């Protein structure tokens, strides 16, 4: 398969999923869009080292996760330079959506992302992939965590998110 075809397929088949992974990691709408754009650039630049026969989806998800982790570093630097607060204000994750942008499909989804934002990075990554219906084995392959570790993290994070969404765990993080 030639590189341009892999790239086209990645955008067509996984674009939405890659963007949702960004949603789990980055709350600010503009920064999320930047991270998605950077993910596409990194996919393009990484094509030369992509092993033929490997799964495109896992490879692309991993690039999205790392781009988001890297973006948090970059946004931290930017915030530091601008002198703004390091930690984003608590609130709805779609607060920063500019006028005209599509509203969140469901308020509960907005709340879910707000709660995910309060998780530690590894749990956030695992749950972002879980929400894309990936199996523990696939998530383990992408993150480098063991399958057992992934299962434990999913179980614990789901319970935690549930209690956070029900307002039972406000002091997390």
């Amino acid at each position, binding site marked *: 398969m030639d590189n*341009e075809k892999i*790239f*086209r397929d990645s*955008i*067509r088949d996984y*674009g*939405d999923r890659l*963007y*949702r992974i960004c*949603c789990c990691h980055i709350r600010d709408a503009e920064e999320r*869009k*930047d991270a*998605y*754009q950077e993910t*596409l*650039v*990194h996919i*393009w*630049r*990484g094509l030369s*080292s*992509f092993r033929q026969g490997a799964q495109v989806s896992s*490879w692309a998800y*991993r*690039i999205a*996760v*790392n*781009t988001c*982790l*890297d973006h948090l*570093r970059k946004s*931290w630097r930017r915030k*530091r330079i601008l002198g703004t607060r*390091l930690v984003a204000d608590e609130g709805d994750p779609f607060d920063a959506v500019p006028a005209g942008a599509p509203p969140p*499909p*469901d308020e*509960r*989804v907005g*709340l*879910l992302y707000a709660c995910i934002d309060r998780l*530690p*990075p*590894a749990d956030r*990554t695992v*749950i972002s992939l879980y*929400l894309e*219906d990936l199996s523990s084995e696939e998530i383990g392959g*992408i*993150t*480098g*965590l*063991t399958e057992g*570790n992934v299962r*434990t*993290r999913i179980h614990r994070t*789901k319970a935690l*998110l*549930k209690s956070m*969404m*029900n307002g039972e765990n406000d002091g997390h993080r």
Partner: protein
Amino acid sequence: MDIDELKHETKKIKAPDLGALAFGGSVRTADGLIDELKRRDAAEKKKLRRMMVLYGVVGVVFVAFALRGDSDPGVLLGRWLLASIYALVVVLAAVKSSGLAKVDYAEPPLAFLRKAERRYRFIDPREYFIMVPGLAVAGLAGWLLAASGFDHIAHRTRATAFDILYVLGFLGLCAFGLIMTRKDWKREKGALHARLKRAIEDFARDD
């Protein structure tokens, strides 16, 4: 609220159109994006080539300066040593800006974060292998050039005192540079480095 119930709701979130991204107004399709990325890659390669030409021109000027006729072999050696340090800096810069030092975003996050943490350390232990000999050579080159100048104005018997003063001055300068760089690193990158370390601990934790 159950997370699994919300799973399918999250699927309603779609990626923004390519036209809404900051690639430029002309990018609307995947093919347009490919063209834009190719254009950016070509521009980056051109920039890198220009940098290498600039380094080359400065290198030629430097070598011409080093070869400038001078009867004192110590001065000549000092200049050559400075020129070789310049060459070392150019090679390191070239390696850094070429593909060899590029970040691999397709690595597992833990390996990715570990490499990022290494890049953000105050000094990577491996850098000592370049930094210490580099400083020693720079110190020697400086001494050769300064000692030659000193010999013109003072008697040779005072050379030992000069050497001691030079070594103390050079080490003091190195220590001052190290302290200031450390201070700057702590202000600029210290908190970020600590954050990366926490993220690594989080990923490395085997529950």
